[in-house]
């Protein structure tokens, strides 16, 4: 008996399509339209062709911001993934402390991005902030508004504080799904703690860690609010990431053409990376 094809089910997708069309496709079309034109406001546009793309691709400002974006993503992944796994390995598996631990770990995830920036601004102040006062008392010069290195430490610390919990919770979910039989077999074989981690826990966490890697990479690549609130992209342009620069050009300078061209290039980079990650993940699922 052959399959019955009922294409009426496609109508179920219609509401989602309308939402996506209004929230993504129409704005995207507008951005494409802006990217080939110039405007001085008042809804008057002048044809500019591909000039804005050429200008963006030739500008050090764009490549600098893109480089900082990649550097930031690499740094936070190198910190958050191992740290999240380490925390997950040390979280309790039984008893009342499990719930307590999970709630505590989930708390940073509930805090909005701009609040994280404000919290760090306060705790790093040398007069009323605990961390700022402690660093200052130790005689360590730490000026995140004036020193690029300190600004980077602040932005990275904010992201690590905010999002390591996500990695830890995902890794923990992977760990608790491992049946006890694996650990019993390892004990019988006299496996060391490291061998258990290397040959049992890490392979079993592979899928969730890949998801964590994907989520953290994409999110960090789009970082905006924390550096905007804490450093404003400075000092100079040291923490000006693509999204921060984009807002400065589009809203601050009202250069809609260059901003639109930059948005499209930014979008293409994210689209390519998303596709690569999606392909790797689905391939991984098929092999699992």
């Amino acid at each position, binding site marked *: 008996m052959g399959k019955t094809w009922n294409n009426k089910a496609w109508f179920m997708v219609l509401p989602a399509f309308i939402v996506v069309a209004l929230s993504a496709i129409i704005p995207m079309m507008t951005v*494409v*339209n*802006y990217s*080939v034109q110039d*405007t001085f406001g008042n*809804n008057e546009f002048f*044809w500019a062709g*591909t000039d804005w793309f050429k200008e963006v691709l030739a500008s050090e400002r764009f490549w600098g911001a893109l480089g900082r974006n990649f550097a930031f993503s690499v740094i936070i992944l190198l910190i958050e993934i191992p740290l999240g796994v380490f925390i997950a390995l040390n979280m309790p598996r039984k008893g009342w402390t499990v719930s307590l631990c999970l709630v505590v770990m989930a708390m940073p995830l509930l805090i909005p991005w701009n609040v994280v920036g404000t919290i760090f601004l306060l705790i790093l102040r040398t007069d009323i902030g605990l961390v700022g006062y402690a660093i200052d008392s130790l005689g360590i010069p730490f000026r995140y508004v004036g020193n690029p290195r300190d600004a980077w430490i602040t932005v990275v610390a904010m992201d690590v504080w905010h999002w390591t919990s996500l990695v830890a919770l995902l890794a923990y979910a992977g760990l608790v799904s491992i049946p006890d039989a694996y650990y019993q077999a390892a004990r019988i074989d006299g496996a060391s703690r490291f061998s258990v981690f290397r040959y049992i826990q890490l392979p079993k966490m592979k899928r969730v860690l890949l998801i964590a890697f994907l989520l953290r990479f994409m999110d960090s690549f789009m970082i905006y609010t924390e550096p905007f609130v804490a450093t404003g992209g400075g000092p100079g342009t040291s923490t000006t990431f693509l999204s921060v620069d984009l807002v400065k050009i589009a809203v601050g300078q009202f250069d809609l053409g260059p901003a639109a061209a930059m948005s499209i*290039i930014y979008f*293409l980079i994210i689209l390519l990376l998303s596709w690569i990650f999606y392909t790797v993940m689905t391939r991984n699922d098929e092999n699992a």
Partner: protein
Amino acid sequence: MDLSWMAWTWPTALFFIVIVCMLLGMAFWEYKSPGGAPRVGVLRIETTRGDRLFISLLGSAYIHIAWLGLTNLSLWWALALSLIYAFCVFRYV
């Protein structure tokens, strides 16, 4: 409905019309030959014809961006290169 804020131009409208026509063509192809024709090509991943269109469009966008950034030659050459690239994707990927 006033759409002047979208700042439409003929070239950009034509660009989107071509994309929509491609999607409609793919839908018609799928209707005529359901299943998406999955296969494993040179990338060693299983792709359907929809995947191959996506890879073609994304690659073409990068070809055009690279062309703008690296040369001063006409963009028509980039379009020609993109068509060759899309043909190769549909043939070998």
